[in-house]
């Protein structure tokens, strides 16, 4: 193996790794605040790419109808309890978004506008999924939450198949530029991915460290009951965490679809890799999860070169030693009582 192949593999690995970083960070936010392992996050990766691809080919994306449907149910439930305030988030906002999406599809809006709309649609789905799938479970233990995650994954891929069909899609790159760096070429898309990843991680850090709402989310993550006692609305913090997680998924989807075609069910596999990375971070540590994500990306890229058939086995088997180490390090404190 010569140096240029090595560097190309490394570039590939770090590029996908950067996407896994986004997903792992999203999973961690959702998990620490709500204890939900948001397995269906990967499906939202597909949702974002498929939504954008539909808009570019002048078809109104089905995801907007899903969003409208969920909002309508939420609106009816809220109005039934006399909460008129719900009209804005569940009535006016989705109506405006639907109109904008329809117009952008009909008249062929520039790609960045379509991207923004796709991001908004998918991000808005996150809190609604939390509202309908997880919130009614209340203080259930981890396990029902995990089973609901699995079930939700099936629901989402079913919906994606219904709206978008089984075809894989590619979306436009952010840039077609390439740069010569000695023995290899660095693609502009890779650089964009790295840049977006860094910006998002930086922005999240700012949000959690500097803003009051970010601090409230951290409080909810470190001590749910304590946070509630000092007035942090736990339903609101859960929905916010899911909004962040689905935003991360949507961004990942738009970043990865130009490199790897996505279909209704491939996002899930990408999501699982992000999940492996989050577990490497012990489901608590952001820096470790980010490092884990880069490791997973590079490992995947290299094993894809040497033993492509074993690529997934190697990545998933990585989990087992990590889980053993975590169990031994954390000790046995999981009592049901």
């Amino acid at each position, binding site marked *: 193996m010569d140096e240029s192949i090595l560097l190309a593999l490394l570039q590939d690995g770090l590029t996908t790794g950067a996407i896994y970083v986004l997903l792992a960070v999203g999973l961690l936010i959702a998990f620490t605040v709500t204890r939900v*392992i948001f397995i269906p996050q990967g499906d939202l990766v597909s949702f974002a790419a498929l939504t954008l691809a539909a808009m570019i080919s002048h078809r109104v994306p089905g995801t907007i109808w899903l969003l409208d449907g969920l909002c309508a149910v939420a609106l009816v439930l809220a109005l039934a309890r006399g909460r008129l305030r719900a009209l804005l988030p569940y009535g006016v906002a989705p109506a405006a978004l639907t109109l904008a999406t329809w117009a952008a599809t009909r008249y062929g809006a520039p790609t960045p506008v379509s991207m923004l709309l796709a991001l908004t649609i998918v991000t808005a789905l996150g809190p609604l999924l939390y509202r309908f*799938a997880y919130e*009614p*479970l209340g203080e*259930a233990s*981890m*396990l*029902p939450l*995990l*089973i*609901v995650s*699995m*079930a*939700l*994954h*099936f*629901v989402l*891929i*079913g*919906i994606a*198949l*219904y709206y978008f069909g089984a075809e894989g899609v590619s979306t436009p790159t952010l840039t077609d530029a390439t740069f010569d760096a000695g023995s290899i070429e660095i693609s502009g898309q890779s650089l964009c991915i790295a840049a977006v990843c860094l910006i998002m991680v930086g922005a999240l850090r700012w949000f959690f460290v500097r803003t009051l709402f970010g601090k409230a989310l951290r409080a909810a993550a470190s001590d749910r009951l304590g946070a509630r006692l000092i007035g942090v609305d736990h339903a609101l913090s859960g929905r916010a965490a899911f909004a962040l997680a689905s935003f991360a998924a949507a961004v990942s989807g738009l970043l990865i679809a130009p490199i790897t075609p996505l279909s209704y069910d491939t996002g899930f596999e990408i999501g*699982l890799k992000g999940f*492996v990375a989050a*577990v490497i971070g012990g489901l608590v540590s952001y820096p470790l999860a980010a490092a884990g994500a880069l490791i997973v990306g590079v490992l995947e890229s290299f094993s894809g070169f040497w033993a492509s*058939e*074993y690529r*997934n*086995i190697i990545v*998933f*088997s990585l*989990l*087992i030693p990590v*889980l*053993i180490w*975590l*169990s*031994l390090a*954390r000790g*046995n*404190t*999981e*009592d*049901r*009582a």
Partner: protein
Amino acid sequence: MTLPRPLVLTAVALLLCAALPFVLTEYEATLAGFIGIAAIAALGLVLLSGISGQTSFGHATFVGLAAYTTAWMSRYGGFPPLAGLPAGLAIAGGTAYLLGLITSRISGHYLPLATIAWCASFFYLFGIIPGLGGFNGFGQIPPLVPGITTGTEAALIGVVLTGATLLAANLLGSRTGRAMRALAQSRIMAESLGIDTARLARSTFVLASLLAGVAGWLFAHVQRYVSPAPFGLDASIEYVFMIVIGGTTHLAGAIIGAAVVVLLRDQLTELLPRLLGSTGNFETVAFSLVVILLLQYAPRGIAPVLFRRLRRRPPDRAGVSLPSGTKPPRGSLVLETTALEKRFGGLIAARAIDLSVHAGEIVALIGPNGAGKSTTFNLCSGALSPNAGRIRLLDHDIHGQGARRIARRGLARTFQHVKLLPEATVLDNIALGAHLRGRAGMLRSMLRLDRGEEAALLHTARVQADRVGLGDVLDAQAGSLPLGRQRLVEIARGLCLDPCVFLLDEPAAGLRLQEKQALADLLRALRDEGMAILLVEHDMDFVMDLADRVAVMDFGEKIADGRPEAIQDDAIVQEAYLGGVA
């Protein structure tokens, strides 16, 4: 004379199976066969996840291991299908044992995550191992018996399912079954009763994988085609869905869940695409929605609605108790700690604790909240490991030994926050305490070779229940009792261990006055029989009236030790409690 219920149920089930070939159409028989196979696998998952609390999202892996083994042997190796059963079980069980060696170390929510990991890995393995037909799989697998009809096949599967259900039911009504439920509830509690939780977790895992293996063997020869798809993560999750729909803690839940999923799938595969005007796995979406709604509104599934959970036991007061072990002579030193110390990070929870309890003596450990009483308790019972110091029980140094081995040496305990099986009967909860005094394992329990021992175990439990005053609520759900009486269940459970030293953590909390007096009488009687008793208690009237000796702790240190009257006059103690000489 009335026949025992399991026998009647088994006979009815077998008759039903025998009727299947004559009443079902070809198509219905195929469906019945699939329900049966899925139910056998789901039965394993109920034992593993519902009963013993180890959720697996990798169950289909073991179905696949056995299916591939027997498929390959009979298609390419020229072996008869029957030879594939032991081979398939060996592969499935052996793999489960090896994975279990690893995963029994994995606790809590990490375990289901690990099962996802290996399920995904095995799915890809099935697809890439040379000679197994890749992701398309291979066919032309011989049927179970040459020329067998679908109806007979369904009957045969029904018989296997009946047998498996009977064995599993036998297991649940036994010493091991109780221990499995304890495993799901609290490993700390289970270990304190002498249950080897890691080993039990492993053997349950192997048992579940063997049931999955039987299902896989049937699957390969009924379907006559194998490929990775029915053994992947999706299939594993579908088994979880089945037991969630049917009811995770009921054996019947496996059968109900399998029937609901298979039949609904059959109907919905036709119906939904017509309704929606496009093709896709919409039945899976429908199941998933059902599962989400069930978990939100009826997390126990269908089975508990159909069946009453609690069985009435015949009020059998005659019978033989288990033999008691030899006890240390009165007045001899039973439990002794020397310079015991426990640190949690920078916090010293207990320092230089010297305690002694003799046979036939009640020692009370008192002190303000946060003084380190419960820590000291957990050190003595092995729930925590000390950083320094020594603990001797009888003539053995038990420093650093786990709770299980300390229980084996004759130490019983109760918990400050009651740890019971809330859904099991009071009698079953108490009988759990006699775990160490029985020997029957999984196999003997499943074959009902444990009945003599089980009767003695239950009789012992009844005697102890009578002793603490719970004789009238043996069949009640433990969780339905008021907190004070739940404490009594724990005490009776501890007595079933036949201990020489009994550690009671706030036994009188939540009891009414008469109940407190009854408890005090009971403890005095136990003391007079020569038991050593160490108790933590906040009720001073109760303590001063009962204890022979009182040790006082404050800020992790023992500040006084002596007769109750002397302690009450001790200036240091008064300062600790009242902030100065009153």
